[in-house]
């Protein structure tokens, strides 16, 4: 393992073109200046970090993956797939008619397509994790969908981490050119019981009139902490869909920035998360409307039980030029046991005057009226509550872009709920 210093940096720039070396150097400069975030910072409220990133080290190579097939690995006919383990690409195949290659290969062969997009979505001054990613990432996958190209079926991106005490920086960049269509499934996972830190970075650039679907299943092991950054950028009339299922992790944070730059672009952002035991699921979502006639809908549903904590802060910012914009955000949380907590903080910042905006945020227990109605139909209270939980999540999952994945997420959430009941935590 290599500590986060000059040596790790040298490895990250090995063979990189000069623009990428410059990018990484910029990252290293920021990394050296940053301290660990504190709960006093607005973006880090509610969650206290108990470690120093400088105590962690990057794995020399990909570790062995003992983990089974998991939630999406056996889905029908992906057109391409890639596996990234401990920050190293261990397998990559298919993808046609899109180009699916490693970040390093993209940097070396795709010229401007790589230089204009790679690492441009996440600024190294965002926080220490973004800076570290920029400085030390050994890469990941790059998906390039040429103009007017329709990719028929999902591309699977399997991102894993294995090494105890390690930190890794997996990366995914999707460039969907004008009028193209692609659907990408990302699965994050790691073994239970191993202390691992992961800092994923995902960037999506949708060209004019492109349609991009990104579905993420976060299923980290129970001692993994993840600090993800993700940016989605839309051109004119671009359709962006992002859905995340938050299942695993000891602490899983996702900092999402969506930029609706082009006129008439649209983003649908969905989420379903279930925190059990002492899990912390932390979502910081920023939706920026820059183009006129843009629309966005954020819709996240979550549940927490035992000592779990969830955080959703949702910021919608509508720039002055973004007239005729529609922007909505909904975050609903079920508190299944007394010790669990959900923070739900919607925010609006509206600089334009001709817009329609709305937000709804709720945090509360299961509805006793629903339980009454369902038990009056002969269901036991346990089945009634389970059905209520299923329905609660179904409202989000039924809108997920990949329905086969949504069905598995529904099963996984039900399994977490049932385990909580059977283990006497509810």
């Amino acid at each position, binding site marked *: 393992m290599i500590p986060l210093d000059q040596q790790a940096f040298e490895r990250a720039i090995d063979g990189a073109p000069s623009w990428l070396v410059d990018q990484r150097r910029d990252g290293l400069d920021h990394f050296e200046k940053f301290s660990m975030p504190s709960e006093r910072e607005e973006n880090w409220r509610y969650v206290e970090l108990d470690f120093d990133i400088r105590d962690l080290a990057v794995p020399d190579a990909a570790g062995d993956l003992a983990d089974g097939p998991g939630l999406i690995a056996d889905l029908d006919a992906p057109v391409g797939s890639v596996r990234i383990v401990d920050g190293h690409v261990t397998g990559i195949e298919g993808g046609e008619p899109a180009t699916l290659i490693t970040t390093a290969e993209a940097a070396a062969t795709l010229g401007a397509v790589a230089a204009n997009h790679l690492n441009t979505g996440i600024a190294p001054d965002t926080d220490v994790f973004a800076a570290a990613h920029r400085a030390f990432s050994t890469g990941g996958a790059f998906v390039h969908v040429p103009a007017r190209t329709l990719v028929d079926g999902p591309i699977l991106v399997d991102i894993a981490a294995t090494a105890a005490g390690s930190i890794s920086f997996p990366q995914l960049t999707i460039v969907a050119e004008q009028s193209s269509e692609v659907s990408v499934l990302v699965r994050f996972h790691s073994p239970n019981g191993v202390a691992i830190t992961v800092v994923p970075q995902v960037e999506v650039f949708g060209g004019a009139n492109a349609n991009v679907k990104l579905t993420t299943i976060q299923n980290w092991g129970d001692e993994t902490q993840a600090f993800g950054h993700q940016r989605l950028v839309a051109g004119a009339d671009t359709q962006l869909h992002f859905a995340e299922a938050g299942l695993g992790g000891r602490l899983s944070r996702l900092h999402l920035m969506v930029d609706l730059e082009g006129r008439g672009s649209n983003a649908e952002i969905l989420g379903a998360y279930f925190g059990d035991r002492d899990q912390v699921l932390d979502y910081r979502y920023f939706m920026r409307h820059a183009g006129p006639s843009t629309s966005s809908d954020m819709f996240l549903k979550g549940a927490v039980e035992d000592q779990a904590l969830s955080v959703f802060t949702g910021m919608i910012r509508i720039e002055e030029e973004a007239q005729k914009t529609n922007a909505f955000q909904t975050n609903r949380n079920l508190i299944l046991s007394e010790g669990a907590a959900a923070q739900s903080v919607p925010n609006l910042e509206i600089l334009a005057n001709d817009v329609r905006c709305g937000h709804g945020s709720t945090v509360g227990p299961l509805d006793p009226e629903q339980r*009454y109605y369902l*038990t009056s139909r002969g*269901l036991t209270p346990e089945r009634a509550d389970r059905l209520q939980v*299923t329905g609660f999540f179904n409202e989000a999952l039924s809108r997920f872009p990949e329905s086969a994945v949504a069905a598995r997420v529904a099963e996984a959430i039900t399994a977490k709920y049932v385990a909580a009941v059977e283990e006497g935590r509810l």
Partner: protein
Amino acid sequence: MTAPALQIRDLHASVGELSILNGVDLDVPAGEVHVLMGPNGSGKSTLCHVLMGKDEYTATGSALVNGAEIMGLSVTDRARAGLFEAFQYPTVIPGVSLDQLTDEMEAAADDGEAFRARVESASDHLGMDRFRDRPVNDGLSGGEKKRSEMYQLAVANPRVAVLDEVDSGLDVDAVREVAELVEELRSPDLGVLLITHYSRILRYMKPDRIHVMVAGKIVRSGGPEVADQLEDEGYDTLRGSDQPDQDDPLLDLL
């Protein structure tokens, strides 16, 4: 006379300090359809909920379904004892389709094939096909909700059905449909207590008895003529009088 499907004795119920039911006695024999009328706020829905076991009410007294005491049982066990409540205000179950609900009811009911057959025939009969994929009571019109309640009733196949204003908010055709459905469901195994504000529905069905509740008590019981009287005179003559109508043979028994 056969044992009543539903037999209520001296039923009292309150919420906090507010006493809502003040000694209800009522018999609904199997095979019969009884109607319960009464002014707003008199306690009709409360009676339904107290029978079903809703936990916000403190209740005393007795209620037998097919001869078995249900007071003190859980809501689930009352349903399993054969009681069904069609709700005046059916609860929305977000994200749960009617099919999912009836699947769960089937698993709970333990009469597999017969249950399936009822689902299919009731669905056909009530034209429920286009609602079965939709979330329970979510975004349904008032009439559609009542239809869904009647569908669940037909599927559940209870021994006692209390139908709380299943005719409210329905257009004339739908009222007739509901009335006819109640008549179709009439069987020697089922007692029905139908709550309504409108004698309109009585044009299409033949209730065996009509009861009037005022201030949490049955103040009048009789044949179909009771409804006509109410239509003419309103509840005023019954309000404030705790004296049962001396001509009423059933009340003599109480």
